[in-house]
């Protein structure tokens, strides 16, 4: 196949052959977010799976409870996401075998995932990964990873198709970014404070209904996994299906 490419001097149009090659990746849409509270953490994800302009499934969960109070989601190319989840679950199983069923701490899980991702540095898992749970002090914790394993802990993060729509909303409503104490004339920032589970669920629902309105790859259903010291709980809310 050949295609017409214009050079810097446009009259000098070249006919360059374009190599056709198998593309091992695809974009399966969807979006996820993680929020850490004082004694809990959540990961929420929509349940729509897409390719191009088609809906593959209206209910294909992508947030998982991996055990040891660890929530896990890898959003992007869903085959890689599923492979990564399976690899992590397997790694966790071996950790239990090798260390007498010792509980894997969230920060160790994060480091393990970094190695899983970086291990494929030159053929990456095409996913934005978020894990959540409780840290060693029992405080809510969220870690997020780029496709090749760079990671950091944060209070809240969004990933996937609707991330750029949801993240500014989270910055404003969870970290109170750009909010000042009334009367201080923009000198005193609104003080950070932990949100309750109910407040977080409300924020998550509004974030996802809004992303559904404006992003075509987001919709169908919302699944929220909540990790507390008492274990993991799941909530489901329908989203618009258009």
């Amino acid at each position, binding site marked *: 196949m050949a295609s017409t490419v214009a050079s810097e001097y446009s009259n000098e149009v070249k006919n360059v052959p374009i190599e056709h090659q198998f593309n091992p990746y695809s974009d399966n849409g969807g979006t996820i977010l993680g929020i850490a509270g004082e004694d809990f953490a959540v990961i929420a994800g929509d349940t729509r799976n897409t390719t191009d302009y088609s809906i593959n499934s209206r209910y294909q969960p992508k947030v998982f409870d991996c055990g040891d109070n660890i929530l896990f989601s890898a959003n992007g190319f869903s085959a890689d996401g599923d492979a990564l989840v399976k690899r992590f679950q397997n790694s966790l199983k071996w950790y239990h075998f090798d260390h007498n069923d010792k509980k894997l701490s969230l920060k160790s899980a994060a480091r393990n995932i970094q190695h899983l991702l970086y291990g494929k540095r030159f053929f990456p898992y095409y996913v934005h990964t978020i894990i959540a749970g409780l840290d060693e002090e029992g405080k809510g914790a969220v870690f997020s990873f780029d496709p090749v394993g760079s990671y950091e802990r944060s209070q809240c993060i969004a990933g996937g198709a609707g991330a750029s729509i949801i993240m500014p909303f989270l910055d404003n409503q969870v970290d109170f970014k750009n909010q000042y104490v009334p009367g*201080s004339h923009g000198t005193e920032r609104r003080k950070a404070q932990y949100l309750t589970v109910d407040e977080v669920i409300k924020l998550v629902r509004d974030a996802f209904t809004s992303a559904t309105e404006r992003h*075509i790859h987001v919709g169908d259903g919302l699944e929220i996994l909540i990790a507390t010291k008492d274990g993991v709980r799941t909530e489901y809310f329908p989203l618009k299906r258009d």
Partner: protein
Amino acid sequence: MAGLSFDNYQRNQYLTCSTNTKAQATSTGTTIVGVKYDGGVVIAADTRSTQGPIVANKNCAKLHKMAPKIWCAGAGTAADTEEVTKLIGSNLELHSLYTSREPRVVAALQMLKQHLFKYQGHVGAYLIVAGVDPTGAHLFSIHAHGSTDVGYYQSLGSGSLAAMAVLESKWKQGLTREEAIELAADAIEAGIWNDLGSGSNVDVCVMEIGKDAQYLRNYRTPNVREPKQQSYKFARGTTGILSERVLDICQVEEQTVDIELEA
């Protein structure tokens, strides 16, 4: 000079290559349909317009009036469908005035296809033209390169396959007005639910022989948003005022007239 200007063509071509960006037009995803019935024709459209994966407009109007009884549903580049419809609509009115006759759908069809063919597909308008005129009810579809098609039912846009699936399985000869409207709206809904380029509401236009065209804007609204979980009203002063300056932009003159004195 008549026609469209291609002055920026070379510049855009250069920009595309050197900056890896492209000026992109709104809306390629759409579902539009047309259905004929005994005594008239109906067209329908969804109301979502997109820029890539982002919804640009949740309730846009894709049904255009070209003449009082000739309407057109547009898919493809939003600006092109809008402009070509307006241009040919104007010419159609001039032609109707000149000939002292009601405009005909075949005239609209011929003018649209000749215009689109001239621009070799660069005017990205994909249209379903329908209407009633002294020769009866008509339904056509036109592609951006200028080819046309006739049929009892038509669908176009990214949701055309979903819509056509419904039309192929539900269409029958001798539909009534109501049946045709429901079939067209059902076909659009198939696009709304199954095609990500289509969404929100259903617009319908019914053109019946011997009657005025009936434009049914938002005939179905199956996608009303649920109320939000909480209010996001900020306390006054949350955005700090760092400095304040008031500009006199327009000159204001005041004159007080004492009515009693004047009397």
